[in-house]
């Protein structure tokens, strides 16, 4: 029997599952679906090509094998799909694969009563960062001199972004070098410190698989009692085989994580420096925000935003007839989100006006964390800034049965 904190090498016992390194992730999810521990699996599958990972909602266990393998151009966030399309897992049990930002988003949505975590099984995936499909293709054509359509696989290993072509050619370029030119991973991924998502029920990846199991097993860290129970179930059901990890592997995994977290902190420092300080920073934020077309994609895709009646739609706060909108539009977003921003990058990735929204929000989050000691996305603690009596207030709001904060707070 495993418990929280245990670590294993695990690999699939099915010939059909061709995973990235052992196929344990898909095998565990398949077991969970077959055993009816979950009703649906929300994960990612290759779409048109390797640059086109597509979210999929799978109810037929046989279909899961098609989702094995990793895709580094998957730049989206899955948890908000549970809120939007699966009724917050309130009446349906969901298995989901999560990167660090997904795992953090899941917690923030759960804190806000938007997702019922009791009905969610989360399988964490170690993530060194993702690359926008458009950037990846341009980079492979220009920096690698390779037709992006000829690439059959890409991976990030030992500080390099490596591509493999259909005729067996390998080419790697240092990520540092790519990123200095504005290529490589998304800017928010460069700043990320959540490389092994221990917030999930299980955290899986290939870091630390050492010795004869290298490339053939998945490193699994059990991160919760639920994770332990599903993992043990998958072993008992014969879905996966396991062995103890090589001690040297543990050491390597630890080192990789430490190095990547350091890189994240370094990127934060250099990226935040481009914003300047004080009024200079405010001026920069106001200047860039004046490109806004009020499409609301930042709000739609933010895992923190959930209000039924968004304050940015109140005419007494934001003039609804003007484009670009008043700066108040962005001030409302900052005030509502900054203490809880998980740096998922969606608000920037999907901004048609090229506003570095995630950079602005993350820069504020880091400062607020220094002041108040609250780290978003790591546990179920509520943000300290939101309300002086947040916990009591949440309980009162829950009792009203409505999530409309404005109405609940000011409507009486």
């Amino acid at each position: 029997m495993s418990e929280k904190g245990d670590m294993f090498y695990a690999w699939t016992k099915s010939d059909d599952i061709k995973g990235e390194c052992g196929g344990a992730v898909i095998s565990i999810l398949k077991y969970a679906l077959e055993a009816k521990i979950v009703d649906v699996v929300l994960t990612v599958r290759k779409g048109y090509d390797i640059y086109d990972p597509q979210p999929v909602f799978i109810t037929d266990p046989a279909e899961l094998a098609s989702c094995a393998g990793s895709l580094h151009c998957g730049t989206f966030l899955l948890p908000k799909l549970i809120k939007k399309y699966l009724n917050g897992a309130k009446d349906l049990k969901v298995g989901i694969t999560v990167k660090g930002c997904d795992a953090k988003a899941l917690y923030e949505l759960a804190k806000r009563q938007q997702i019922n975590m009791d009905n969610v099984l989360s399988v964490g995936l170690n993530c060194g960062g993702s690359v926008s499909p458009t950037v990846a293709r341009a980079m492979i054509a220009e920096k690698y001199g390779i037709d992006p359509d000829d690439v059959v696989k890409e991976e990030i290993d030992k500080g390099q972004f490596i591509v493999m072509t259909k005729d067996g050619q390998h080419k790697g370029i240092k990520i540092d070098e790519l990123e200095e030119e504005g290529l490589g991973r998304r800017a928010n991924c460069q700043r990320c410190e959540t490389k092994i998502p221990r917030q999930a029920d299980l955290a899986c990846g290939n870091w630390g698989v050492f010795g004869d199991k290298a490339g053939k097993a998945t490193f699994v860290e059990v991160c919760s009692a639920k994770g332990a129970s599903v993992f043990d179930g998958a072993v008992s059901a014969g879905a996966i085989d396991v062995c103890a990890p090589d001690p040297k592997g543990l050491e390597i995994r630890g080192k990789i994580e430490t190095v990547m977290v350091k890189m994240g902190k370094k990127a934060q420092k250099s990226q935040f420096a481009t914003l300047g300080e004080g009024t200079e920073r405010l001026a920069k934020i106001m200047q860039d925000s004046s490109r806004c077309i009020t499409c609301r994609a930042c709000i739609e895709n933010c895992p923190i935003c959930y209000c039924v009646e968004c304050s940015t739609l109140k005419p007494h706060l934001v003039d609804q007839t003007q484009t670009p909108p008043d700066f108040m539009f962005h001030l409302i977003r900052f005030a509502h989100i900054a203490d809880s921003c998980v740096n998922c990058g969606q608000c920037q990735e999907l901004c048609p006006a090229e506003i570095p929204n995630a950079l602005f929000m993350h820069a504020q989050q880091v400062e607020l964390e220094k002041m108040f000691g609250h780290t978003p996305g790591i546990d179920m603690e509520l943000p300290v800034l939101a309300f002086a009596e947040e916990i009591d207030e949440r309980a009162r709001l829950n009792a009203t049965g409505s999530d409309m904060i404005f109405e609940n707070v000011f409507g009486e």
Partner: protein
Amino acid sequence: MQMKYVTTICPYCGTGCALNLVIRDGKSVGVAPSHRSPVCSGKLCSRGLHAADALDEARIELPYIKGEPSDWETAINKAAELKKYAAGEIAVITSSRLTNETQFLVQKFAQGMGADIGVVNGGTGLPTVTLNGIGEADVILVLGDVMKALPLTGNRILQAKEKGARVLYLGPQSYSAVQADTVEITDEYTDLPPGFSALLKNAAHPVVVHLANDPAAATLAEGLKINTAVLYETNNGRGTAAMGIAPLSLPENIKAAFIIAETPVMEQDIYADLLEKLDSLELTVVAASTETSLSGIADIVLPISALHESEGTVTNWEGRIQKIKPAVVPAEGVKTLDAVLADLAGKVGLSIPSGTPEELFTTLSAEIPVFAGAEYVQIAKPEGVFLREA
């Protein structure tokens, strides 16, 4: 519970952003970004973000005759009275939102009937630059509020500006004016302000950007002899123009009209100028997927499937042919426009091409030179395939 994403092309402007329609149990319930799209990289404007609602709103599900519900047989028989009218008395008024394949059938139908054909909300003109070309420009002259009309094309102007390009603007006060570095506010543009010409002349990669239905801007742009982005405001305005279908001008002695009013909600005022004239005709047949202002004046309304219920191709302003995919099944009682045209052609004794979208595309690419060489299967690539003249 069955849920899936269907990757298709936004039904609104001529930028041609890809998007994913989220389909739950056969119904479209939302829009999700398609990060893989080389056109938009997953970014969408407010119209694209709400495409799922717009495509399903105000749908017509029954044929109507003089405002009363009818059945298909009666309605088609009545519509076939269009054949009574001679050339010069009848016009086919098409939509710039149909797929290339269906537009081709509409054109064939009009030709067979001897009818004039024209498009509403279309445009004219050939761009000499693509989206990527705008992004790489060093001086961009924007004529009119193009960034509001085609927000994700506007995105490339913003990208160029971020890389150091200088943006010049001539036109009314607008969002585009706010984004430009040098601005001349005017309601009419006949000449360039003095400083603009020198800046364009000294640029290494100057580009002028204007809408395809803005003749004053087109004249001004033509005189500059630099790369021009001609922006069509609808998802297939460029494809429609490439087939030689010009913006509508009604024949003087018009007595009857067949109008294809495929248009998502949010832009139905495009028929405002025509309503009075159309109301005075002897026979007005409207084929539409949604209620429009035309429903009130039409003698016959034929309900057709909408853009997210059909397969086919559309051409963005760049000349990039892209695939649209059926995401949901149309309601019972609704027919595809292809089927309606086939029925009508049969009744009036015309022969028009038929077949699957792929067969129709093959036929049209063999017949219309600018489409030549484009292969249907290749169009399914996220990059699409460019028209020969692009």
